[in-house]
């Protein structure tokens, strides 16, 4: 082989999605020899975080199907990815005119100072506004390309959730920084309201009457009191969470808060599931201000890169921009490894993205998780009355015409965009729409305004795409030493399912070893003068 890679491994991981990266880290961590490759020049694939130019390139690339290069090798059987699957479809992008406002930069100060002090400095200076045409917008975004960090799969972490536990335990957390989500919002009938999440929020909110406050407090306590696997909870498996809430003597407004914002449920969610989701939310409140959520600075891709770093620190070998064309397989036996750059890389275990699994192993009939995404770049916050920072808004359709849309708005503090801009992510389940993005159009008409009337934000850039993730549950009959990893499940806001999947794969390979144990006391701080 051209490069001096070892030719045999405990685990070869193909694809740098989150599940793959966690598995790579966990295996390397316990001393297994790991090779981790990806055909792209960047980490993350469906989980990638892109700057504006990268997004343009990504949209452009979608047209051409990657052509697999067959290089026959004697007496070995390939499990080839015969056709490239179109996992991303209905892509379009548009630019619009609008007015941007940005705080005046303090004259001739270096970057870091400007970043930190701009808020203070700009209060007494008049903000600068700039009117852009659609063409101006296009040029402006291109010129600011690197100031954007745009997630293909935006996600949040529950402050007391399993992902945070693993990050702390494994010390992967030291490669990461987070921001709290400042505003939990709900938009019903075109009106955006701040959702009271914690008990102290309930006290201070003005959208709920005193009597209702009592009922709401009681209900929040009740929701938290259900025990996992209890009979009570089991009985609630056959009714919907919506019906459960209707029986609780609370107004519709409050029902909506709990159903859509706190449980992030739909009309179809069972009561048992809704209660579990509400618990995850409520259990994470009170540690990080009145928000259960934290957001990884610079985007989702940071999380998987942090796991890759852990893997590398423990000897994992990393090769991007490198194809592993086929799995090399002996008839009906275990997989021997992968075929890459004209050579064979032997592996005890092969971990691959579901997107790479040959279609004969994929059951396309079983339901897949298809979702719609929009990335908007806007000029103002959707909820001017909120705190400056990240907002998570739920946009339900009360007549059940569509599933709720989740909206995540990131301002410049998050490093997602330069000052004066906002990045807004939309996610919704694909299913009930007759035409693509029909539901997004309704949200956009409610919340945004092309002319900025009523202080509404204007959309300057809009990227739409539809993602069809193949879940590992759709894959069957692979050789026992080949493990497939699902792509991002954007319909759930957190990383829980990906983490579980990674742990399951790890346990299948190494049943007797601990999953991402805490590193032995490292002596980094020891050597001080």
């Amino acid at each position: 082989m051209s490069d001096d890679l070892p030719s045999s491994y405990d685990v070869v991981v193909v694809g740098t999605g989150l599940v793959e990266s966690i598995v790579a880290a966990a295996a390397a961590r316990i001393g297994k020899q790991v090779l981790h490759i990806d055909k792209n020049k960047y980490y993350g694939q469906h989980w990638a975080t892109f700057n504006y130019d990268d997004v343009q390139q990504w949209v452009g690339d979608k047209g051409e199907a990657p052509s697999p290069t067959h290089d026959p090798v004697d007496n070995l059987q390939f499990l080839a990815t015969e056709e490239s699957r179109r996992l991303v479809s209905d892509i379009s992008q548009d630019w619009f005119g609008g007015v941007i406002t940005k705080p005046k930069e303090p004259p001739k100060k270096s970057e870091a100072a400007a970043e930190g002090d701009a808020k203070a400095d700009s209060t007494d200076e008049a903000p600068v506004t700039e009117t852009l045409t659609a063409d101006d917008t296009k040029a402006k975004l291109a010129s600011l390309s690197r100031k954007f960090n745009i997630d293909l799969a935006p996600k949040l972490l529950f402050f007391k959730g399993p992902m945070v536990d693993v990050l702390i335990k494994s010390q992967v957390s030291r490669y990461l920084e987070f921001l709290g989500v400042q505003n939990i919002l709900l938009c019903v009938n075109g009106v955006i309201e701040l959702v009271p999440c914690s008990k102290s929020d309930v006290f201070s909110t003005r959208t709920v009457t005193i009597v209702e406050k009592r009922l709401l407090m009681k209900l929040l306590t009740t929701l938290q009191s259900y025990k996992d696997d209890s009979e009570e909870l089991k009985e609630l498996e056959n009714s919907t969470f919506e019906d459960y809430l209707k029986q609780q003597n609370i107004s519709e407004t409050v029902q909506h808060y709990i159903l859509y914002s706190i449980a992030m449920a739909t009309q179809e969610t069972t009561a048992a599931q809704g209660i579990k989701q509400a618990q995850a939310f409520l259990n994470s409140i009170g540690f990080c201000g009145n928000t259960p959520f934290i957001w990884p600075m610079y985007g989702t891709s940071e999380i998987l890169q942090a796991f890759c770093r852990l893997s590398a620190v423990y000897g994992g070998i990393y090769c991007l921009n490198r194809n592993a064309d086929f799995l090399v397989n002996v008839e009906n036996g275990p997989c021997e490894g992968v075929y890459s750059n004209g050579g064979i890389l032997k592996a005890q275990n092969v971990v691959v993205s579901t997107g790479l699994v040959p279609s004969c192993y994929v059951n396309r009939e079983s339901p897949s998780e298809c979702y719609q995404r929009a990335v908007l770049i806007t000029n103002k916050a959707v909820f001017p009355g909120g705190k400056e920072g990240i907002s998570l808004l739920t946009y339900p359709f009360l007549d059940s015409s569509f599933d709720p849309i989740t909206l995540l708005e990131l301002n410049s503090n998050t490093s997602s965009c330069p000052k004066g801009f906002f990045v807004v992510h939309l996610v919704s389940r694909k299913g009930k729409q007759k035409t693509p993005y029909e539901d997004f159009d309704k949200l956009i008409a409610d919340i945004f305004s092309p002319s900025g009337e009523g202080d509404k934000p204007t959309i300057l850039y809009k990227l739409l795409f539809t993602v069809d993730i193949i879940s590992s549950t759709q894959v069957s009959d692979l050789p026992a030493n080949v493990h497939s990893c699902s792509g991002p499940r954007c319909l759930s806001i957190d990383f829980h399912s990906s983490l579980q999947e990674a742990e399951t794969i790890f346990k299948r390979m190494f049943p007797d070893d601990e999953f991402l144990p805490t590193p032995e006391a490292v002596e980094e701080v020891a050597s001080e003068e």
Partner: protein
Amino acid sequence: MEEDVLTTLKILIIGESGVGKSSLLLRFTEDSFNPDQSITIGVDFKTKKLTTEGNTVRLAIWDTAGQERFRTLTPSYYRDAQGAILVYDVTSKQTFTKLDTWLSELDTFSTKSNIVKMVVGNKIDKDGREVSRDEGIKFARRHATLFIESSAKTQDGVQCAFEELVQKIIQTPGLWESMRSKNTISVDGDNNESEPSCGGWKCSLS
């Protein structure tokens, strides 16, 4: 953070595999040197206090963890670094030529436009020099970086390299003073049961 420490600075070490990056890091932080094996594995980052010209700073010095081998360093490796050490091996021309690529990678990914760079020609104890001191100096001048020659083996120039880099960082306005620390919240594994530790801004879980 202790009273006497001005700030924590993030320093990166990059360059081709085998030039002695990990060795420089361990020589500086632990005053140790291992002549035989490649020690990249297991080195994550090390911290060390350094006092120069009356200022004490804490350095967090990051190793590549071997991810430089196939150019797979993650963008997050470069984030928020105030200083970068670009290492080549004076006995290998090829590692010197590759510095151009490393500089451009640094420019692509570093988030601070005024990051301080230092070029280090390592392994001066070895015979068979292929890159003269002059060539090194010229390269550094052309790219406006600091320059020093060193040996991780004999310790020559190592302390000096880090001191000069730190001095330059401290002299660079805006590079370190207004770190976002006022917005930073730390959520320690040990004490995260206690207070709501996150004032709503940035937090790190550790």
